[in-house]
């Protein structure tokens, strides 16, 4: 006899039902509301991130990053402290909106939460001179592309689970 049998039919338990522990069903929520976190995009305003100016510039149509006013180092991703000299005296500087494809692949079967509906899509590394960043390459498939191809900036507005007007950068073939 399994435990389930016994608990479902105490009368068959040789008169020992008075020793059965009390039993009831307790409920947990069918859906658990979690903090907004798992859509990969940060909250981009001054209340939430020290690099809000990067996102603000991008929202205004310009790709920028930080440059150290003391040692001149250009960073990417943008920072609030220079990793070269630890100065916190940083300014935003423009990055070129055109670059070349340094490497690329196509995401097919292994996408993360929130990206599965987008597959297949191209992910690449774009060389902008001073910096080399990863980016999605829209309007292209793997077979269309070669290393060295010119690409240019595209800005996407993120329609998601917050009230914020969030943005991000992608690239497209020239």
């Amino acid at each position: 006899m399994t435990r389930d049998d016994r608990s479902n039919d105490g009368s068959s338990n040789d008169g020992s039902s008075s020793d059965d522990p009390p039993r009831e069903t307790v409920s947990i929520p069918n859906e658990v509301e979690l903090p907004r976190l798992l859509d990969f995009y940060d909250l981009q305003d001054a209340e939430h991130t020290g690099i809000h100016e990067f996102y603000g510039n991008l929202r205004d149509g310009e790709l920028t990053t930080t440059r150290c006013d003391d040692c001149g180092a250009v960073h990417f991703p943008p920072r609030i402290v220079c990793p070269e000299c630890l100065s916190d005296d940083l300014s935003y500087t423009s990055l070129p909106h055109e670059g070349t494809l340094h490497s690329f692949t196509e995401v097919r079967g292994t996408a993360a939460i929130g990206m599965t509906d987008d597959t297949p899509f191209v992910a690449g590394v774009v060389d902008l001179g001073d910096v080399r960043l990863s980016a999605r390459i829209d309007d292209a498939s793997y077979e269309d592309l070669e290393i060295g191809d010119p690409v240019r900036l595209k800005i996407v507005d993120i329609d998601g689970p917050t009230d914020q007007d969030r943005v991000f950068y992608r690239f497209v073939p020239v």
Partner: protein
Amino acid sequence: MSGNAAIVGGGLTEWGEREATWKDLAQEAGKATFDDVDGIDRSDVEGLFVGAVQPERFAFQSHVAPLVAELLGIDAEMISRTELACASGQAALRYAWLAIAAGQIDVALVIGVEKMNLGKEYMPEMQSTMTNVLDREFDGVNGLNGPSHFAQFAQRHMHEHGTTREQLAMVSAKNKTHAAATDFAQYRDAVDVDDVLESYPIAPPLNLLDCSGITDGAAGVLLVSEEKAREVTDTPAYITGSGQSCLSSNSINNLPSMTTWPQAREASEKAYDQAGIEDPLAEIDVAEVHDCFSISEVIEYEQLGFAAEGEGGAFIEEGRSELDGDVAVNPRGGLLGCGHPLGATGVCQALEIHRQFTGDVPAERAVAGDPETGLIHNLSGSGSVHSVMTLGRDPQ
């Protein structure tokens, strides 16, 4: 370093898609470890080091080192978990080594555990967990994860050095064929080059069989002082050198290159220097390297000093990394064959070197001759950090 430390034995769970919890896996590996070593009891263990990458997300559990202590009945005076993405197991072993070398403890249990499979319907959750090992805000967000990140190393290596698709497939075929003789491996079907080439191009130029698995598993070793090692075994595996390098890099922009890993070169040179190894290809008999993807092993031949830069593809094609080659690489089957339960991998690699020294491996995958010098290598995350350890039959 004031004191030597040696692996005197260890044990494993079966690796794969296990019907088991994180705690089940930790208990299985712990029991197997103590069952393997005569002369060391749990009451002898002074240090407990647990390699685990994301139990918070895979198993909704943190503070896992005391959990392991409780499960195995260990009263450790030095206890911690290490997290260094895919190198967490080697990091645990390294800290245990440092503690013994510093004379603080004599006996350490090193356990690596990862429970990764949540069911196929939750694959996007699994991929998210791997994605945030990268810089989530600027790289993960672009769809980079394991396959799509390492595919871009492959794309670039093929472009710059003429490495061929077939050469990548040879790495997978070699390691998966080794794993066919490994009783705990996730993948025990021997495959050939054509099987790899014909598998699904999951992140081109990488195919499915160029990728390691999503694996549940655990491994443990006992690492002890030289004095203790001499008491309990005639065949210890001494840690003779250990190096790491990160070069202040993590995100794509700050990686030094998309074709080379100078961090692996620096880490290995530090380890070789400590171990007195001058010619790694001539002196290292068996190497357990981090073949999370086929391209990884090709680049590692170059950066660990086995092949010249750009010639990793020729190195596999010429058979120089086979069991009877210049250096036997990944005799247990590597990550490609055994799977990759993140925190457990480095611990398992070290145990494999010990087993190759003792001869406790099936003949089909025993390294030719009597191997005397071994190496383990792990990379972490984007390839930003590399960790290398050398092992030998004699103390340094």
